[in-house]
């Protein structure tokens, strides 16, 4: 990766910006902090333009959605002119107003139809009432309450007003509710309302302009509903017409606004000097020549400087371009979830691509279940449906894990939990527990050693030689670990005749180096003082850190034993379901197979999830933590002029 610095006069702002924006491999850094007063005004103006474009872009996208068009595909970049947002807004005001007017009219008509339907619902229970509303409403002496109430409370309601000059008429009864009309003197309207409320009578509020009997009003409502629906149809036709006549134009305006916004946003990241602009960014080494030529072709006053990564200062941090393809790309996300690799650090994605499925398969070894998992992965990967789209990238991971599980299934001799159907190519975990645990311990030791070696490579790349030689994760730590392993194996299997004296000596020497790694690293790297917090504190600290390293050896190594444990547990769980199936149906009839199917589904789902979590844990905490510091940042080139194929 190369750092690029571009300096150019104000008069070339547009041309340089276009050239920079068209590049697909250039990541711009934000230099706006350089801006002094006049630069700050410039930045404020650009931000204001950006906000204006953003607002206009949202409005046009919404209009396009509302007339049933997407944003379409952008025009070729050469046609795009960066204009003032006010100008675009003015040019398109008429069209936007016309569309908004039609849309508002549609919305109003739809609301009116909803209101009519609601009114129809309110009046339908009273359609048997042969009284004109205006004859019972707003009368001088008569007060009426019309509504519905629980049917089982009606009798009690009548009893409650037996001593009052009120009339209660039940107009209709549907399900558990009665439609009721209560009439009484207007002088007692408040009392009537209170009593009606106490009977849980929900009164109906009808518009004052309603005239006629309920049946007559319902007829007029039906007529008006038909008129409104015709109006709605006309409006939709008008909208279709607008879409056909102006849709393409609106889409073009949308892209003009969008790309103008993006360009303005690019400009906001420029550093403004007294008379010139300063742009700083990153580009892959292989692209720098072509990029430089494009810029210099604009004018001799454009100055372009390239600084290779090897000449950057200690606090410069180039972005990292991760460019994995195919199934390996699926694991990239798992890695970046932990952290983005630093610039001078090994990218563990390929390693994860190998080790993750291996560990998973070892814990989940079963031919049938693995095959189903692989099929599920294929389905997920190929599926284009919206609901599962976000999980598409996991498809490849699941396929590989499934295939690995199939392989281990053959090694363990297990197919859908049945262990007698196929002969194991290696051994059955549940029948050889000690053996499988030892093998997985050994595999763990290998992985940990690999992690330590990677740590050495990273340290060498970063020039941390003190760390490389003396640290617990460096060469001394690696040799110490191997020495301990050698001693353990030598004691456990003495007939192998391992050189235990050599291991002991190596352990003593490397152990001492690790114990004093702190001061040795500082000595080599010429850092002073040697004991930052004093000799006594250093000794105490060193002791505890050494202890931590030793504990780490044991715990990290033993952690991989879980792989064997889960392989045993997987077989154990399968056996449990076998036993249950036999208990349910000893004759291995339908009941037996139902339990087997349920058991396999359970194992696939539940245990599959647990094994995935354990695998991830082993990768992140046992493996990555040995060599992977992360803290990098992803290379994100500008895409201002490189629009996606589909409208966004």
């Amino acid at each position, binding site marked *: 990766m190369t750092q690029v610095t571009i300096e150019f006069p104000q008069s070339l702002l547009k041309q340089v910006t276009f050239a920079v924006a068209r590049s697909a491999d250039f990541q711009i850094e934000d230099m706006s902090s350089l801006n002094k007063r006049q630069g700050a005004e410039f930045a404020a103006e650009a931000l204001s333009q950006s906000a204006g474009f953003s607002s206009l872009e949202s409005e046009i996208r919404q209009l396009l959605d509302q007339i049933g068009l997407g944003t379409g595909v952008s025009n070729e970049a050469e046609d795009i002119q960066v204009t003032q947002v006010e100008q675009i807004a003015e040019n398109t005001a008429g069209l936007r107003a016309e569309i908004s007017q039609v849309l508002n009219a549609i919305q109003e008509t739809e609301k009116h139809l909803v209101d009519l339907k609601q009114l129809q619902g309110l009046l339908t229970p009273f359609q048997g009432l042969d009284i004109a509303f205006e004859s019972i409403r707003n009368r001088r002496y008569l007060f009426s309450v019309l509504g519905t109430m*629980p049917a*089982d*409370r009606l009798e*009690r*309601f009548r*009893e*409650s*007003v*037996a*001593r*009052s000059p009120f009339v209660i008429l039940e107009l209709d009864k549907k399900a*558990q509710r009665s439609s009721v009309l209560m009439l009484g003197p207007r002088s007692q309207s408040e*009392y009537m309302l*209170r*009593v009606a*409320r*106490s*009977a*849980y009578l*929900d009164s109906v509020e009808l518009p004052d302009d309603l005239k006629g009997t309920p049946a007559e009003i319902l007829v007029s409502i039906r007529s008006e509903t038909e008129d409104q629906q015709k109006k709605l149809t006309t409006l939709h036709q008008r909208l279709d017409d607008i879409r056909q006549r102006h849709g393409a134009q609106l889409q073009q305006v949308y892209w003009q606004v969008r790309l103008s916004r993006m360009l303005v946003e690019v400009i906001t990241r420029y550093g403004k000097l007294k008379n010139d602009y300063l742009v700083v960014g990153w580009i892959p080494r292989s692209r720098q020549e072509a990029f430089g030529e494009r810029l210099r072709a604009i004018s001799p006053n454009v100055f372009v400087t390239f600084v290779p990564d090897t000449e950057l200062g200690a606090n410069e941090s180039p972005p990292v371009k991760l460019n994995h393809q195919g199934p390996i790309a699926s694991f990239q996300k798992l890695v970046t979830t932990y952290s983005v690799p630093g610039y001078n650090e090994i990218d563990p994605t390929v390693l994860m691509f190998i080790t993750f499925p291996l560990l998973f398969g070892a814990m989940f070894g079963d031919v049938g279940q693995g095959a189903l998992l692989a099929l599920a992965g294929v389905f997920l990967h190929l599926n284009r449906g919206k609901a599962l789209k976000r999980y598409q990238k996991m498809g490849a991971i699941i396929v590989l894990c499934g295939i690995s599980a199939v392989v281990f299934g053959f090694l363990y001799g297990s197919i859908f939990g049945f262990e007698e159907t196929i002969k194991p190519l290696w051994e059955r975990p549940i029948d050889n527990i000690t053996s499988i645990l030892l093998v997985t311990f050994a595999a763990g030791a290998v992985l940990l050693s690999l992690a330590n070696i990677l740590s050495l490579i990273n340290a060498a790349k970063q020039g941390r030689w003190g760390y490389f030689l003396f640290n617990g994760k460096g060469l001394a730590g690696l040799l110490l670990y191997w020495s301990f392993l050698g001693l353990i194996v030598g004691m456990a299997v003495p007939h192998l005749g391992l050189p235990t004296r050599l291991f002991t000596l190596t352990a003593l020497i490397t152990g001492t180096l690790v114990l004093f790694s702190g001061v040795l690293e500082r000595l080599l790297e010429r850092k002073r003082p040697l004991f930052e917090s004093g000799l006594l504190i250093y000794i105490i600290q060193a002791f505890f850190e050494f202890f931590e390293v030793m504990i780490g050896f044991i715990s990290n190594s033993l952690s991989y034993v879980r792989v064997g444990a889960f392989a045993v547990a997987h077989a154990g769980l399968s056996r449990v379901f076998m036993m249950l199936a036999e208990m349910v149906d000893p004759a291995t009839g339908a009941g037996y197979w139902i339990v087997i199917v349920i058991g396999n589904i359970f194992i696939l789902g539940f245990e599959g999830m647990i094994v995935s979590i354990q695998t991830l844990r082993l990768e992140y905490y046992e493996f990555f933590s040995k060599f992977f510091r992360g803290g990098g940042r992803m290379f994100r080139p500008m895409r201002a002029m490189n629009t996606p194929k589909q409208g966004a």
Partner: protein
Amino acid sequence: MSGAGSFGVLNVRVRAALAQLLTSADFARLMRAESSTAFANALAATAYGEYLVGSDLQEISSRRLGYQMRKRIPEKFKLFRDYAPQAAGRLIDVLFRLYELDNLKVVLRGINLGDKWQKVLYLLFPMGEFKSLPFQAMVETADLGSAIALTAGSEYYEPMRAALPRVAQEGTLFSLEVALDLNYWTRVWSLTNALKGSDRSLARELIAVIIERNDLIWAVRYARFHHLNEAEIINYTLGFSPKVPDSLLIDIANGSSLYDLLPRIYPDIQLEPRVDDMTYRLNGLEVALQRREQSLLRNKLSAYPFSIGGALAYLFLLEDEVRDLTMILEAVSLGLSRSSYQPYLISIPAAQAAAES
């Protein structure tokens, strides 16, 4: 099963349960307890001891003790419901649901006050093995409308849904709780009337007494504390019993004194001497009515055995017994003297024990 066959086993269960009702000697021992630990030890020696198995009687809190005691009620209701013939069993089930209704009101009040589930939980009555409403989920919605929606399909949903707009208008749960009460007791009365023969007559006799008491107490409360008019009071009461007619409710609404009205219904009840405190008088009225019912219930125990009468009588006696136990426990925990709760004891053995001491 029908008649003797269908009630035979139930009758045996009722007799067995009756033998376990607390005597005045039991109550006397409990009243002599000077702490909730002593109370727990005394209670453990009674039929309630089975609910304290596994609890550390030295450490058990009075709240936990009360909760354990109350478990006897759902256990007995379920037992009798399961042994009773269908229609009778349905009535017993709904009668137990009064506790569910009380729990529902507690939950609604809790939501209205913004209480958390942990606080509401402690106020709920144990439902035993009866399936109930999703109270925790309701409290966690923290919204009345959403909580009510969770009861869709239950008998409580429609009255609550209909009353909810009034809660928003009036700012209280009053109309909602009244709607629930009216709906509940209407269902109880309907199920009572659906019984046949001696079941129907006995059940009506027992339940009508409760309905009368409810109408009377509600009417007084609505008139004196909520200042409702006569029509509102009539709408907010049940009106199923001829003993509490609308004319009586109208008199209550118009301010007639209880001392003048009560002899018209219950000539045998003597209220406390006239006092000004309406709350005190109302509590006194309620206790007097419940004590009167005790005699009726005990009479029904020796009525026709192959009917629901005995089971209902026992269950109501049990409820009164637990209520008294709870009161005594609370008094003991708070260090209150016997004289403070004696006027409120309902069950005959408890009242006798208090009087003899």
